[in-house]
C-alpha cells in the first residue's frame, strides 16, 4: 500500500455554505439522543441556519437558547428550560458573552493579530470549565443534540480550554463569509473613522464592536479584503478603551498595508497620540513627523510635537513647532498658551506674557492661563499686575490653592503682610497639608517679630516635610530675627 499518496494529503477547497449546511442537517437528523455539534458562523448566518433546520426537519423539536450575558453554569440553564425532555435539538448562541467578558480575553483582544503564545491554565472562563466538567451529565441527562453557534475566536478558545468537551463532538462546521458579505458588514456595522461615535458608546458596546471587527478580520483572512478600515476602527476603539498598546498595534497594522494618504496620515497621527500617552516620546515624535510629511497643513500635529518637546525640556524646539502650528491656525488658544509656558521656562517672561495675552484674547475662562501670566508678571516684579491675574484665576476656580499661595508671596513683596497671611490661611483651608503655606506664614511672623507664631508654623511645616523646610529655613534671611532662638535651633537641626 502506498502510504505517501499525495492525493489524500491535498486539502479540498473550503466547502460551499450549501454543502456545509447539508452536512450539518444530516448530522442533526441522524442524532438520536445526546449529540454535540459546533458551528462557526456569524450571528446572522446562525439565525438563517436555525430557520432552515426547523423547516427541513419538522419532525424534530428545535429550541434555541440565546445567551445575552455572561453565565457560569450552562448545565443549570439547560435544566431550567421548560419541556426540556421533549427537545430534540438545542441551538445555543451567545457563548461568547461568557468568554470575552473575562479579563485575560480583554488582554488577548488587545493583541488581536498577534497570536498569544501560550494559553495558560490560570484563569479560564468558568463556563468552559463547567462544560468540560459536566459533559457526562450533559450526555446522561439531556437527550438532545446540542448545537453551539459560535464566532471563530470562541471555537479556538474552546479547543484549547475545554478540550475534553470539544473532543466529544460529532462534528464541527464552518460557514465562512464571502468577500461581499464582509464588505456589507463593514459598511453597515459602523462608519470607519467616525471616532466621535465611539466616544459616546459604553465600554461594553465598544468591546462588542472590537469583537465584531475581530471576527471580520478572521473571516477575511483568506480573502483579498480591505482590512484598513477594520484596523483603523480597532485603533480608535482601543484608544477609547484606554488600551494604548493595542491601539498602537492596530494603527501599525494599518500602516503595514500601505493605505491611502488619508488613512496613512490618521494612523501616524493617532499612533503618535497613543505613544505619548505611554510616554514613549521619541517614537511619538517620529510618528507625528511622518504624519506632518503627509499633511503639513494640520496645525494639531505641530502642536502635539511642541507639547512633547516641552515635556522633554526642549523648549526652543517646542516653540518653533508651536510657531508652525500658529502659522496654520492662529486662533488656537491652547497653542498660544503652551508657547507661553515654554517661553516662561526659557526665562523669556515678556515674550511669555505676549503669548498669554493672545491666548486670553481667545479664551478668558481658563484659570491656568491667568495664573501663568500672573507668574510671569511676578518674575518681572510687576506685582500689582500679577495679583490682578491671580484674582482672575481664583474667581474662576475658588479652590485654586496654588494661586492663593503665590498671591500670598506676591503680597509679601508688596509689603502687605496681613493680606499675605490671609492668602496663606486660605490655602490651608483648601489643603491643610500645604506645608509651604505654613512655611510662608512662619516667614511672615518672623518678619513681624512674632517669634512664637513663627516657630509654631515652622514646626507644623517641618512636621509635614522636614527635609525641604529645614533646608529652606537654614538660609532664609526672613528668619534672621529668630535665628538665635533656641527653639529655632532645635527645629532646624
Amino acid at each position, binding site marked *: 500500500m502506498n502510504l505517501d499518496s499525495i492525493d489524500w*494529503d*491535498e*486539502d*479540498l477547497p473550503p466547502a460551499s455554505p450549501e454543502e456545509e449546511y447539508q452536512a*450539518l442537517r444530516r*448530522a442533526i437528523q441522524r442524532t438520536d439522543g445526546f449529540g454535540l455539534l459546533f458551528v462557526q458562523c456569524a450571528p446572522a448566518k446562525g439565525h438563517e441556519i436555525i430557520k432552515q433546520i426547523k423547516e427541513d426537519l419538522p419532525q424534530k423539536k428545535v429550541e434555541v437558547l440565546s445567551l445575552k450575558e455572561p453565565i457560569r453554569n450552562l448545565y443549570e440553564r439547560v435544566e431550567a428550560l421548560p419541556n426540556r425532555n421533549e427537545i430534540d435539538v438545542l441551538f445555543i448562541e451567545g457563548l461568547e458573552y461568557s468568554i470575552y467578558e473575562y479579563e485575560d480575553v480583554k488582554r488577548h483582544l488587545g493583541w488581536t493579530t498577534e497570536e498569544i*503564545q501560550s494559553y495558560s491554565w490560570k484563569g479560564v472562563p468558568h463556563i468552559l470549565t463547567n462544560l468540560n466538567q459536566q459533559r*457526562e451529565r450533559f450526555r446522561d441527562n439531556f437527550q438532545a443534540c446540542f448545537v453551539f453557534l459560535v464566532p471563530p475566536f470562541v471555537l479556538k478558545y474552546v479547543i484549547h480550554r475545554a478540550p475534553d468537551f470539544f473532543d466529544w463532538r460529532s462534528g464541527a462546521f464552518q460557514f465562512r463569509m464571502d468577500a461581499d458579505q464582509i464588505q456589507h458588514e463593514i459598511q453597515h456595522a459602523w462608519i470607519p473613522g467616525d471616532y466621535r461615535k465611539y466616544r459616546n458608546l459604553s465600554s461594553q458596546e465598544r468591546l462588542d464592536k472590537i469583537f465584531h471587527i475581530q471576527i471580520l478580520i478572521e473571516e477575511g483572512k483568506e480573502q483579498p479584503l480591505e482590512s484598513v478600515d477594520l484596523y483603523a476602527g480597532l485603533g480608535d476603539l482601543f484608544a477609547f478603551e484606554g488600551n494604548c498598546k493595542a491601539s498602537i498595534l492596530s494603527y501599525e497594522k494599518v500602516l503595514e498595508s500601505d493605505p491611502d494618504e488619508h488613512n496613512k496620515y490618521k494612523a501616524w497621527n493617532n499612533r503618535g497620540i497613543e505613544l505619548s500617552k505611554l510616554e514613549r516620546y521619541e517614537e511619538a515624535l517620529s510618528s507625528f513627523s511622518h504624519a506632518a510629511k503627509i499633511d503639513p497643513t494640520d496645525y494639531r500635529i505641530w502642536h502635539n510635537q511642541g507639547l512633547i518637546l516641552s515635556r522633554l525640556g526642549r523648549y526652543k524646539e517646542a516653540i518653533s513647532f508651536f510657531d508652525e502650528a500658529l502659522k496654520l491656525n492662529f486662533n488656537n488658544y491652547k497653542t498660544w498658551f503652551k508657547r507661553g509656558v515654554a517661553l516662561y521656562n526659557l526665562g523669556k517672561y515678556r515674550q511669555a506674557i505676549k503669548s498669554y495675552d493672545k491666548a486670553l484674547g481667545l479664551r478668558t475662562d481658563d484659570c491656568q492661563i491667568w495664573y501663568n501670566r500672573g507668574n510671569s508678571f511676578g518674575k518681572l516684579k510687576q506685582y500689582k499686575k500679577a495679583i490682578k491675574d491671580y484674582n482672575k484665576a481664583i474667581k474662576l476656580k475658588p479652590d485654586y490653592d496654588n494661586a492663593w499661595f503665590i498671591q500670598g508671596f506676591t503680597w509679601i513683596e508688596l509689603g502687605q503682610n496681613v493680606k499675605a497671611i490671609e492668602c496663606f490661611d486660605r490655602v490651608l483651608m483648601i489643603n491643610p497639608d500645604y506645608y509651604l503655606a505654613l512655611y510662608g506664614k512662619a516667614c511672615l511672623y518672623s518678619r513681624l517679630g512674632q517669634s512664637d507664631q513663627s516657630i509654631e508654623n515652622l514646626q507644623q511645616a517641618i512636621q509635614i516635610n522636614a527635609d525641604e523646610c529645614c533646608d529652606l529655613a537654614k538660609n532664609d534671611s526672613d528668619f534672621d530675627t529668630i535665628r538665635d532662638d533656641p527653639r529655632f535651633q532645635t527645629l532646624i537641626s
Partner: protein
Amino acid sequence: MVDEFDILTQIFQAFEPSKPLEPGDPAYVMCEDVRGDNNILKDLGNEIRRSEGSTCQLYAGHRGSGKSTELLRLKQYLEEHGCFVVHFAADAEDVDPQDAEYTDILLACTRHLLEALLPKTKADPQPLMNWLHDRWSSLKELALTEVSFDGLDVEVGLNEFIKLSTSIREVPSLRQDIRKQLNPHTPTLLDALNQFIIDAKRSLPDEKTKLVVIADNLDRIVPIVDDDGRSNHDEIWIDRSGQLQELACHSIYTVPISLIYSKQVSRLTDIYGNPQVLPMIMIKTESGDLYQPGFDKVREVVIRRLQQLNLNLDIETEVFESPEVLNRFCLMSGGHLRELMQLIKEASNRLDTLPITVQATRRAITEARDTYRRTVQEAEWEVLAHVARTKRIQNDDDHRDLLFRRCLMEYRYLDSEGEMQCWYDVHPLIYAIAEFKEAFSAVQP
C-alpha cells in the same frame, strides 16, 4: 433511497465518540498486543489480586484513547475475582478539575466509600461521624450546614459528607475556606476512613475479600502552577503520595497524561511503581512503515462496529467506496480510536447515500486537519517538526502540552528482547499542514 439513508443513520450512531463501551460489548476489540502489550486486567488487575496488603496504582492515557472503557472492563474482572469495587467519576460532583487539591480527592473518596459500603456491609461509620462531629462548629461557621448533628445519626452524617464534598466543587468561593478548615485534619480523616474501611472488609457482601477504589477522571485535573513553580499535580500525587497510599484498601487513580511526562516522573515511579499508560494503537513503525498488526486492529474496530448493524453489505466495496477508503480512515486516525469515530461520522455527514466516497473522506480529513491547524500555535510547528524527525520528545512544558492536545502521540511496543520501547510521532493529520511541512523541511535530518 430511504433504506440507504437509514443505514447511514445507523452508521452515524454506531460511531458515537462520547460513549465508552460496556464490558462484554461485542464491538470491543482487544488491542493489547499493539499497545505495547498493555492489558489492564493483567497489569493493574493482577497486582491487586496478588497482593495481600493495599496497593496504590496510577493509570493514564491520552484523551479518548479508551481509558474509561478499559476501567469498566477492569471493574468487571475484579468483581469476578472476589473484589468489591467502588468506582466513581471524581469530577461529576466532587472535584473541580480547574482547581483541585488533595483534600478534595480525599473527601470524594470518603463520600463515595460511605455511600457504597454503608448499605452493603456492616461497617461502623462511627469514627467518621466522630470526625465530622469534631469539625462541626467550624463547618457551621462556613454556613455549610444548618443541621444540628450530635454525631449519632448516620444518615445525616452521610448527607453532610456528601454536602461537604459537593460544596467544594459547586461553590468556588467557599472552596479555600473549606480546605483551610479541613487541611490540618486530613490525617485524622484518613485514620477514621481507614477504620471504616477495615471494618467494612470484614463484612463485604457476596463473600468478597478485597476492596478496591477506582477514582476515574482525575486525569482531567488541570495543572495549576503557583508562583514558586510548584503545581497542584505535584502536591496531589507527589507531596501527598504518602497519604494517597495509606488508604487501607486497593486504589487506582487516573492521572493526567502530562504528569507522566513531567520532570517528576522518576519520583512518581519511585512512589507508585511504573504508572500504567494506555498508549495509542501502533499502526506504523518508528521507521515509517506500516505496522500490519496494529493497522489490522484498527480496521477491526471499524468492521466489528459495522458488523453489529447486520447490514448485509460488503464493507469494503459497498459501505466504503473502496478498500483504500477504509484504510485511509485508519491511517489518518493515528491509532486514536475516538478520532477514527469522528472521521467516519464527519464523512457520513456529507452523504445521503452509500458508499462512503473518496470525496466525502477527503472532506472529513480536510476538516479534521483544519482543527489541528487551529490547535497548534505559531511557535510549536518547530517543536513538532523535531519530534517528527527524531521520534523522541523532551520532558518540557511544550511537549507536554502538545501531548495533552494530542498533536503528539505516544506508541509502545515490545522489541525482540521483550523490552518495552516507547516512541512518539506527530499526529498523521498534521503532516500535510502547510506550516508543518515548512518547519519540517527546515529541520536537519
